[in-house]
């Protein structure tokens, strides 16, 4: 057998082309997603009042400005309060509803399902408009419903609750019902069993639901725009209203603070989740 090197066939160009395209696209997509984020973070440390590149002087003065302004910190407070409310309302409603669908026979099940899911497919403008028109001017005693935080919480739950429902529906499906039956067998009533046995098993789903609802509410501003007034306005609403007038790094700071609140939640969830995993692993 001759030991001469056999000639190499010409290298195919196509795989290289594809690899190059893939690389180009990766660069593009990373850049595309990161641009507004990076720009905001960078600009929040700008000293000047004008939004302009390049940044001449760096400072954290706008952060101080943000926390010094009652209007902005109130808006932040409103946002967080409403987000908590939304999380509580939508998670409770969603969990109970998902449990009902899972364990009980419900007449016209599909119809109810569509009804509960429907708000998800409605644009925020339409939902906000509907609630504003229906409840505008309505008062319970002295308390004006329109413009109240509670109304916004419920409005946000229109989006959050179906999502919690979907998530919990999937989660409940993974529950081993023999454990539930074991509880009944040992004498636990339905309510007791639900709280002591079922809820802990789906705790991850519940915590995820709370997080979902919280983030959705915190970031939402179209419905909030329709339903809040000067006292109860949320941070995103204030940002929107200030967009054309207060085009300063203050808005960048607000964006960063808003995002940090979300990440703070995420971190809490992550830590809680890791703790749960360790508990199970032991």
């Amino acid at each position: 057998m001759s030991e001469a090197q056999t000639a190499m066939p010409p290298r195919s160009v196509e795989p290289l082309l594809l690899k190059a395209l893939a690389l180009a696209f990766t660069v593009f997509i990373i850049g595309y997603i990161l641009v507004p984020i990076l720009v905001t973070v960078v600009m929040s440390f700008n000293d000047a009042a004008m939004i302009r590149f390049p940044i001449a002087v760096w400072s954290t003065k706008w952060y101080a400005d943000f926390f010094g302004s009652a209007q902005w910190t109130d808006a932040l407070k409103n946002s967080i309060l409403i987000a908590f409310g939304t999380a509580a309302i939508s998670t409770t409603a969603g969990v109970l509803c998902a449990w009902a669908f899972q364990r009980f026979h419900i007449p016209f099940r599909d119809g109810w399902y569509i009804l509960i899911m429907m708000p998800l497919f409605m644009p925020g403008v339409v939902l906000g408009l509907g609630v504003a028109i229906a409840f505008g001017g309505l008062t319970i005693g002295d308390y004006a419903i329109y413009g109240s935080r509670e109304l916004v919480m419920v409005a946000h739950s229109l989006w959050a609750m179906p999502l919690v429902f979907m998530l919990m529906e999937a989660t409940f499906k993974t529950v081993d019902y023999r454990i539930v039956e074991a509880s009944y067998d040992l004498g636990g009533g339905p309510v007791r069993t639900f709280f002591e046995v079922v809820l802990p098993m789906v705790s991850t789903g519940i915590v995820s639901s709370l997080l979902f609802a919280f983030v959705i509410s915190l970031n939402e501003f179209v419905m909030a725009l329709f339903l809040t007034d000067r006292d109860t306005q949320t941070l995103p609403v204030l940002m929107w209203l200030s967009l054309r007038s207060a085009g300063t790094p203050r808005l960048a700071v607000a964006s960063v603070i808003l995002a940090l609140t979300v990440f703070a939640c995420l971190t809490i969830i992550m830590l809680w989740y890791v703790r749960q995993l360790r508990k199970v692993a032991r």
Partner: protein
Amino acid sequence: MTPLATVTSHIAERSRQERRKATAPWLLMLPALVIVLIFFGLPTLYMVRMSFNLHVDQRLYVPGFTFEHYVNLFSNPLFTTAILTTIKLALVASLATVFIGYCFALLVWLKPARWRLMFIGLALAPLLISEIAIIFGWWMFFPKNGLLSYALIASGLIRDKVSLMYTEFAAFVGLVYVTLPYCFFILLSIFDGIDKRLLEASADLGATPFKTFREVMLPLTWTGILVAFSQSFIWTMGTYATPSALGPDTLWTMGFLIQEQMLGKHNWPMASAFAVVLVAGVAAVMVVTRSLQTERNSFHV
């Protein structure tokens, strides 16, 4: 207790239990139903009814019955342009989002596992940020003094400052950014249901990457593409903040008009009419998409 008494009390207990069992699900569903029926169902009906009311001078609305708002909607060129603009913008943005989302999901699906987490985190980012923060981010990118201009000049590609702010392109970029994560995750979950060996088998039998895409990937992901497209289309139809903030003042979307009629002109009936038409459009799209989905999505054996 006499035997009869025992039996009757037993029957009474059973029927009490049955009643409890029958009412239990409704009790559990009550909070959700309250929210949906009272805060969504009622307002929707109210809104439909409102759209037929009259609007006279400065009052929010005057009870009555008229079609004038709908007529106005479809005859006033201002409004019809807005409808067409909305549809056009939604169409183009959705097509772009699905295309970019598809490539992105494909990339993540084909790459080894260690990259996946990073890319998923990246794709999640726009979801975790408020739309207003996204708008503001692009707000600082496009104008004359924004990052884009600065970067282009600094790299020597252009000489004068350029502004892409208040252009349809800026609105388009913003819209795609917001809907991209949804498309990405929908498509990625579809891809995950496909056996990668099919791609190898296709190549093994002689298909070039392009042919593999057309013969294998496309048919298997077709439903996913439809779902992602309709999701994106529905969302962008109803949007108003991003296009109005980043686009030109002439870019009127239906969402913007609703907001304007409601908060600006205090014309509740008109705003309601817009909302009804918008929802009808969205519903139509959903129905059309549903009918386009074939039964072939049971292929993931």
